[in-house]
C-alpha cells in the first residue's frame, strides 16, 4: 500500500484550504486501543525507560482516573471516549532508532519536506529553502523522527534532543525539572499527558550561552484515532538565551483526535526564553465541523531567577477546539512575562485561549496582547488571569485584548480575571470588540484590491502587533496562514 507522490498530491489538492491535510501511508506500530495500566507499561517499555519514570507515569495515571474534566472553558464537545483511541503509534521503520538521517524512512523525510520542514542539514545550510538555519526536532505521532544540528549545538554545550533520549542521557535534569512547573495533578489533560506522554523535545542551554540558532519542533499527527501526547521541557540556565519555535499539522480525518501536550519552560537568573507557536492542526470540516483536533495544551513558564524573561507568542489558526493558556509564573524579582497571541477561528472551530500571569516577585512585569478573529460559525474566547500576590511590590501588568468579528454567526468573548493583592501594583486592561470597518474595506477596494484580499490585509494589520514578535522565518508563513484561515469567511 505504498503511496505514490501522485496520490499525495491529489489528496493535497482535495484538501482545499488546509494544505497540510494529507496522510502519509506508512506502516505503523500501535499500542492496543484504549488506556489502562498495561498501555502505560507498554509505552514505558517501548521507550526503555528507567523505573522512576514508569512510577511517575503510573502515579499520574491513577490520579487521572479520579480527576474531573475542566468544564469552565467556553467550548462544547461530545465527551471524549478515552478507551476509543490509540495512545502509541510509531512508524515501524523507527523501531530501531536510525543512526543518521540517511537511515530514516524516505517517506517520513518526504512528509516533512512537503510541509516545508527539510530535515537534511546540508539542504538547509545550502539555503534550498532560502532560510537561515533552524534546528528541528521532528515528532511524528508518538516518536521523534530526527533532530538536526545536534552536533553543532553540542559545541556550545546546548542539549537539544527528543525527550525520550534525554530521559536516557540526562536523567538528572529530567528528574529535577519535569513536572516542576506543571505538576501531574494540575488538570485532567496535563495529568493524562503525564501518564502517557510519548515524545517531545528537550532543551538545555547552559549558563551564559546564547543559542546561535532557532530551535524548533515540528509536530505531526498522522494516524487515525491516535492521540498525540508530547511534552517539551526547556531549561535556560543563568544568563542564557534561546528562541524556540513550534509548528503542528495533522491530516484530515473524520474522527476527532486528542492532542494533550505539556510544555514547561524554566528561566534562571538573567535568562531569556522566547517561545513561538504556529498551530495549524486540522480544524475539522469547514461546513459541518466534523473531525479535527482537540488541542488541550498546558504550557507554563517559570521565571525562577531574578531578571529572567519568558515570552510566549502564538498564532492559533487550527484545531477544532483549542484549550490553551501559555502562562508565566513570575517568581524572580524583576522578572518579565509576555504573551502575544493571534487566534483565528472559522468554520465551526472553538477556541478558548489566553494566559495567566502570576506576579510573585518584586518589580515583576507582564504584558498581554491578544487579537482574536472570529468568522463563520466559530466561537473565539480570550480568557486570561493576572494575579498579583501580596509580595509583588511594584508589579506592573498591561493587557490589551481586541476582537474582530467577520459575519453574524460567530461569537467573540473576552473573560479577563484580574486580582490584585498589593497596593503598589498597577494593572491595566483594555478590550474592544468590533467588526471589520466598512470604511477600511471600501478604501482598499477603491484601490483595486478584492474584498477577500482586503480582509486578509486588514486582519494582518490588526494582528501585526503580535506577528512582529515571531522570528522572521515564521512571520511570513504566519501572514499567509492568516489569509488562508479566513478563506470562505465572506459570502
Amino acid at each position: 500500500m505504498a503511496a505514490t507522490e501522485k496520490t499525495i498530491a491529489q489528496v493535497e489538492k482535495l484538501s482545499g484550504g488546509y494544505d497540510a491535510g494529507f496522510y502519509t501511508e506508512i506502516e505503523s506500530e500501535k499500542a492496543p486501543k484504549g488506556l489502562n495500566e498495561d498501555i502505560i507499561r507498554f509505552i514505558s517499555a517501548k521507550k526503555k525507560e528507567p523505573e522512576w519514570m514508569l512510577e511517575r507515569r503510573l502515579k499520574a495515571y491513577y490520579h487521572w482516573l479520579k480527576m474531573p474534566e475542566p468544564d469552565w472553558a467556553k467550548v462544547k464537545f461530545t465527551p471524549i471516549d478515552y478507551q476509543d483511541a490509540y495512545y502509541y503509534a510509531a512508524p515501524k521503520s523507527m523501531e530501531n532508532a536510525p543512526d543518521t538521517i540517511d537511515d530514516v524512512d524516505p517517506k517520513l523525510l518526504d512528509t516533512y519536506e512537503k510541509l516545508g520542514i527539510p530535515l537534511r542539514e546540508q539542504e538547509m545550510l545550502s539555503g534550498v529553502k532560502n532560510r537561515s538555519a533552524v534546528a528541528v526536532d521532528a515528532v511524528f505521532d508518538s516518536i521523534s523522527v530526527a533532530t538536526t544540528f545536534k552536533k553543532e549545538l553540542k559545541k556550545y554545550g546546548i542539549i537539544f534532543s527528543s525527550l525520550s533520549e534525554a530521559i536516557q542521557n540526562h536523567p538528572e535534569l529530567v528528574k529535577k525539572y519535569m513536572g516542576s512547573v506543571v505538576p501531574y495533578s494540575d488538570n485532567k489533560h496535563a495529568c493524562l499527558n503525564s501518564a502517557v506522554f510519548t515524545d517531545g523535545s528537550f532543551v538545555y542551554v547552559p549558563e551564559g550561552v546564547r543559542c546561535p540558532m532557532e530551535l524548533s519542533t515540528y509536530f505531526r499527527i498522522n494516524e487515525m484515532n491516535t492521540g498525540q501526547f508530547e511534552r517539551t521541557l526547556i531549561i535556560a540556565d543563568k544568563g542564557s538565551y534561546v528562541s524556540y519555535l513550534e509548528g503542528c499539522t495533522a491530516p484530515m480525518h473524520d474522527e476527532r483526535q486528542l492532542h494533550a501536550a505539556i510544555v514547561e519552560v524554566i528561566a534562571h537568573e538573567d535568562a531569556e526564553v522566547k517561545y513561538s507557536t504556529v498551530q495549524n492542526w486540522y480544524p475539522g470540516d469547514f461546513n459541518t465541523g466534523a473531525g479535527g483536533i482537540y488541542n488541550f495544551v498546558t504550557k507554563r513558564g517559570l521565571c525562577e531567577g531574578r531578571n529572567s524573561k519568558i515570552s510566549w507568542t502564538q498564532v492559533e489558526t487550527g484545531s477544532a477546539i483549542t484549550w490553551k493558556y501559555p502562562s508565566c509564573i513570575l517568581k524572580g524579582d524583576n522578572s518579565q512575562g509576555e504573551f502575544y497571541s493571534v487566534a483565528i477561528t472559522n468554520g465551526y472551530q472553538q477556541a478558548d485561549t489566553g494566559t495567566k500571569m502570576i506576579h510573585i516577585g518584586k518589580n515583576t512585569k507582564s504584558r498581554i496582547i491578544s487579537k482574536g478573529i472570529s468568522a463563520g460559525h466559530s466561537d473565539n474566547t480570550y480568557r486570561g488571569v493576572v494575579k498579583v500576590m501580596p509580595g509583588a511590590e511594584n508589579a506592573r501588568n498591561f493587557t490589551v485584548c481586541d476582537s474582530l468579528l467577520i459575519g453574524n454567526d460567530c461569537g467573540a468573548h473576552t473573560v479577563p480575571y484580574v486580582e490584585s493583592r498589593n497596593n503598589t501594583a498597577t494593572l491595566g486592561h483594555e478590550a474592544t470588540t468590533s467588526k471589520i470597518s466598512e470604511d477600511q474595506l471600501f478604501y482598499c477596494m477603491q484601490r483595486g484590491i478584492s474584498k477577500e484580499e482586503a480582509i486578509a490585509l486588514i486582519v494582518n494589520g490588526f494582528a501585526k502587533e503580535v506577528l512582529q514578535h515571531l522570528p522572521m522565518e515564521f512571520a511570513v508563513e504566519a501572514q499567509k496562514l492568516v489569509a488562508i484561515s479566513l478563506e470562505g469567511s465572506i459570502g
Partner: protein
Amino acid sequence: MININNLHACVETADGEAKEIIKGLNLEIKSGEVHAIMGPNGVGKSTLSYVLSGRDGYNVTDGSVELDGVDLLKLNPEERAALGVFLAFQYPVEIPGVNMNVFLKAAVNALRKQRGENELDALGMLKLIKGKSKELGISDDMMRRTVNVGFSGGEKKRNEILQMAMLEPKFCILDETDSGLDIDAIKVVADGVNKLRSPDRSFLVITHYQRLLDYIKPDIVHVMADGKIVKTGGPELALELEEKGYAEFLKAEEQEKAA
C-alpha cells in the same frame, strides 16, 4: 471619457430607509479635461463620488454612468478601480498595522492582475514607490509607517495623490482634497495633481471653496445644488461664486429661472 446621464441615487439612513440624494444629475467629461463641482455642504457632492466609485449603501435608482462606453454601475469597486476610476478620499481611512509599502504593493499588483499585466516583484515595486514618492516630496519614513495612521492632514492628502500617481487611473475624483489644509499644503497637493494632468486622463474636482481652483485650473466649473447640477460655466463661475456666496448665488439663479 465619462458620461453621467440622469443619475438618481439613494443613501440608506440609520433607520434603514432610503433617502434620495442625487436627483437627476447629468455630466460629461471629455478626455484630458478637468471639471470642478462646487456647492454648499449637503447637496450630494461626496455622495456623487461614492456612487461613482461603487460604495455599498449608495444605491442608484435611475440613470447611467459610463466610462469609455463601459457601464460602471454594474461593477464592484475593485473592478471600477481596474478600469481606471480613482477616488482621492476626503477623509483617507486609517488601516492600523498595514504598512504603506505592503498596501501599495497589494493595490498596484491587484490592478495589474485585473488588467492582465504582470505583477511587479519586490524590487520593481520599490523602484516605483521610490520614484513616485520622490516626485511628490514624500519621505521614506512615511512609507514605512502604517496606512494613514498618525499622518497629519497634509500627509494624508499627499498620500492620496501618491496613490493616484502609482495606480495611473484614467478618471480621478478629488473629494474636497483641500479640506483641512493650509495654503502651503494645498500647493503641494495641487502641484502633484497638475503633474498628472494629461490628454488621456480626466479629473473631477469636488470642492467647497474656490481657492483650490487657483492652483488646479479647471476647464469647466459646475454648481451643484439639491442633488443636481444647476449651472455650468468656465473658471470665472468659481470666482463669481466666491464673491457672492452660495446662498445669494442660488437665490439669484432661482429668480432668474422664475423670470
